[in-house]
């Protein structure tokens, strides 16, 4: 479902004397349906960069990234948007929402966008929030006022409300207590059972071992130190 | 008399006016600009109507002039005398006898007939003026039939007063096309504009505009489906002189003690009914 071939990435910093940062070289990787793959490597190895290139908020300059059959290198904005609407899900580390919107609506939104009846979508959102132990009294409040762990769980609920065929997880268990961590791992296992292809970053080694089928070390795609200068 | 051309205006000016009138007749409800002349009376006293009348008059005409329905008020008397002097035409007070009737603020009660011309004096010809101050923009609005704003004004009336509060100069749509200001006639007279047998001409001297309703033109008063137009007048009153309950009435204060009476605004109509009644009484 995710096919990455020969992908490279460089940043050109025009406002810092045109400095060029080569961060990735000839990255290759495949994730099949029902499989969970972990990206590993030291900080700065390009894990998040690759995730963002797959999500599409980082541009892909070299090589090929195919997600659910869609080529992302040079893709039109509307093709990427269509992909995100129903086939590609992303649990990021940070929640980005309009300040006033209630948590329940934030979680339900991905379904509503796809045309699911709003009441039905909210019912599903309520079920997920319950499962993730967000007290009902918080559902009508904006998550901007929540603690870090609560925000993270809202983010996870939003990410798992739709059975995306392809999912990207960026530190899904960070800042969670043991109980909620177990719930998230269950959610990941269920997604795999449904046939989702999952690519994730897990600093939590135990969590990684629990759900991931294999690991890909990003260090192998880091350009040689001499070449980067 | 030899000091003046017939009907005061020179022939070139009359030709200019007649061209404007013909164009106005050809495009019912459309305001045709014309080059308004100085007349020997102030603006606001009917200079537009006088110029249109002057352009229409021929020596065989019989002229009637009314002001608020009356033949004997200052404005009516002076305009009638003016044309007696500069055109030497016959004058009359009787609606049925007249071939041209110049009017301010009324349409006679006696139905008009084919061949008659009714000339209105118009102070402000643009029905959209108080909604949109820019002439350039009102012209475009007319051209594009962009008339939502006019309806908004009626909406506001109902929202605020429970009904369309406009009692005079009530806007009309001509042949389903142009929105037109019928001059400050009471809305009671609006139905008489529709499908009239007579030619109706409107002259605005200060603003230099002529517009027209040819005979048998469809004229609809603007309204809402659930708030239809009604031609109202003083309710439940009869004329104190002729007893008419169907004509438009003026309220006249008779003393300082609050005494008042309602009488027909159309003096010719009222007088002819009084005369007919005294004949019946005599018989």
């Amino acid at each position, binding site marked *: 479902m995710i096919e990455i071939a020969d992908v490279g990435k460089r*940043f*050109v*910093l*025009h*406002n810092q004397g045109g400095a060029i940062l080569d961060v990735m070289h000839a990255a290759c990787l495949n994730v099949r349906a029902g499989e969970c793959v972990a990206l590993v490597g030291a900080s700065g190895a390009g894990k998040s960069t690759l995730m*963002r290139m797959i999500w*599409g*908020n*980082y*541009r892909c300059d070299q090589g090929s990234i195919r997600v659910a059959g869609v080529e992302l290198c040079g893709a039109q*904005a*509307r093709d*990427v*948007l269509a992909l995100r609407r129903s086939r590609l899900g992303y649990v990021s580390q940070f929640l*980005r929402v*309009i*300040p*006033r*919107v209630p948590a329940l609506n934030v979680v339900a939104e991905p379904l*509503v*966008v796809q045309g699911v009846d709003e009441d039905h979508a909210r019912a599903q959102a309520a079920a997920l929030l319950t499962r993730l132990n967000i007290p009902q009294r918080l559902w009508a409040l904006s998550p901007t006022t929540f603690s870090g762990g609560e925000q993270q769980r809202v983010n996870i609920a939003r990410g798992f409300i739709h059975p995306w065929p392809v999912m990207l997880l960026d530190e899904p268990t960070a800042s969670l207590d043991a109980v909620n961590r177990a719930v998230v791992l269950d959610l990941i296992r269920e997604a795999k059972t449904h046939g989702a292809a999952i690519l994730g970053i897990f600093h939590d080694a135990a969590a990684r071992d629990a759900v991931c089928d294999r690991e890909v070390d990003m260090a192998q795609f880091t350009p040689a130190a001499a070449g980067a200068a | 008399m030899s000091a003046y051309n017939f009907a005061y205006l020179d022939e070139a000016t009359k030709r200019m006016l007649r061209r404007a009138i013909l164009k106005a007749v050809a495009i019912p409800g459309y305001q045709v600009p014309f080059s308004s002349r100085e007349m020997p009376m102030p603006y606001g006293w009917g200079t537009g109507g006088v110029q249109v009348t002057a352009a229409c008059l021929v020596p065989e005409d019989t002229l009637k002039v009314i002001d608020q329905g009356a033949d004997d008020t200052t404005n009516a008397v002076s305009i009638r005398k003016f044309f007696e002097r500069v055109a030497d035409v016959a004058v009359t007070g009787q609606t049925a006898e007249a071939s041209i009737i110049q009017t301010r603020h009324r349409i006679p009660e006696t139905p008009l007939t084919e061949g008659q011309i009714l000339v209105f004096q118009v102070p402000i010809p643009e029905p959209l003026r108080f909604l949109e101050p820019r002439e350039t923009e009102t012209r*475009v609005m007319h*051209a*594009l*039939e*962009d*008339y*939502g*704003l006019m*309806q*908004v004004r009626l*909406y*506001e009336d*109902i*929202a*605020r007063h429970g009904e369309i509060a406009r009692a005079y100069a009530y806007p009309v749509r001509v042949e389903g096309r142009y929105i037109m200001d019928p001059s400050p006639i009471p809305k009671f007279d609006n139905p008489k504009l529709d499908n009239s047998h007579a030619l109706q001409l409107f002259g605005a001297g200060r603003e230099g505009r002529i517009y027209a309703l040819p005979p048998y033109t469809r004229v609809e008063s603007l*309204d*809402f*489906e*659930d*708030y239809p137009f009604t031609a109202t007048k003083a309710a439940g009153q009869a004329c104190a002189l002729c007893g008419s309950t169907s004509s438009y009435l003026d309220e006249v204060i008779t003393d300082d003690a609050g005494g008042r009476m309602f009488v027909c605004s159309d003096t010719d109509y009222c007088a002819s009914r009084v005369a007919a009644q005294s004949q019946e009484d005599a018989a």
Partner: protein
Amino acid sequence: MTPLLQVEGLSKHYGNFLGCGDVSFTLWPGEVMGIVGESGSGKSTLLNCLAGHLTPDAGRVLFDTREQGLRDTLAMAESERRWLARTDWAFVHQNPRDGLRMNVSAGGNVGERLMAVGARHYGNIRSQATDWLDRVEIDTGRIDDRPRAFSGGMQQRLQIARNLVTGPRLVFMDEPTGGLDVSVQARLLDLMRGLVRRLGLSAVIVTHDLAVVRLLADRLMVMKDGRVVEDGLTDQVLDDPQHAYTQLLVSSVLQV
């Protein structure tokens, strides 16, 4: 699928000064596009050219009309363009005073477009106006109040109701949240997002507020000195800007 709006080589000069130059893009149904850039970058000029308020020197603006498909709005008769402007298009001004009739009641403001396209039933017009006031979260008991008695945020929501009552397919917005308090902005953004999604609207939003476009816009166009310097997915342009100016713009935003 037919694009809703297709712009080709649009240019507008003010004398020798370039307003906007050679702008081309395609907007698809349901898409929200943001246009950002500093003051004088040509974004408002572009918006006004698209909406027919300004006549460009060159280019075409093709709109997917209901009856005849894609047509160049610049080649249309003024009457057709105005008809579009009060049916299929909407224009939300930065200053509500420019988009509202301040002497007309809230209900009259919302009803005007309905009446302009032929509505003649007072009761229906009023109930539609009531419905829309409710949708933009204005107390329906204030239907007969004039907008000058409203707060800035309410005026802006009234302007939106007035524009959307005829069910337009394309909304042009010029700094819709400018001049509003931050707390009021959030409410307006949420409202606009909900309306855009529920009604399947397409929109072109001009703003200098990057946070606004991140929340509202699917796509982003960055303008500088009348030219489009970069365009693409909103989060791609903001997170991985390619052009020097966009990089400067993004890095200049204060973090809260």
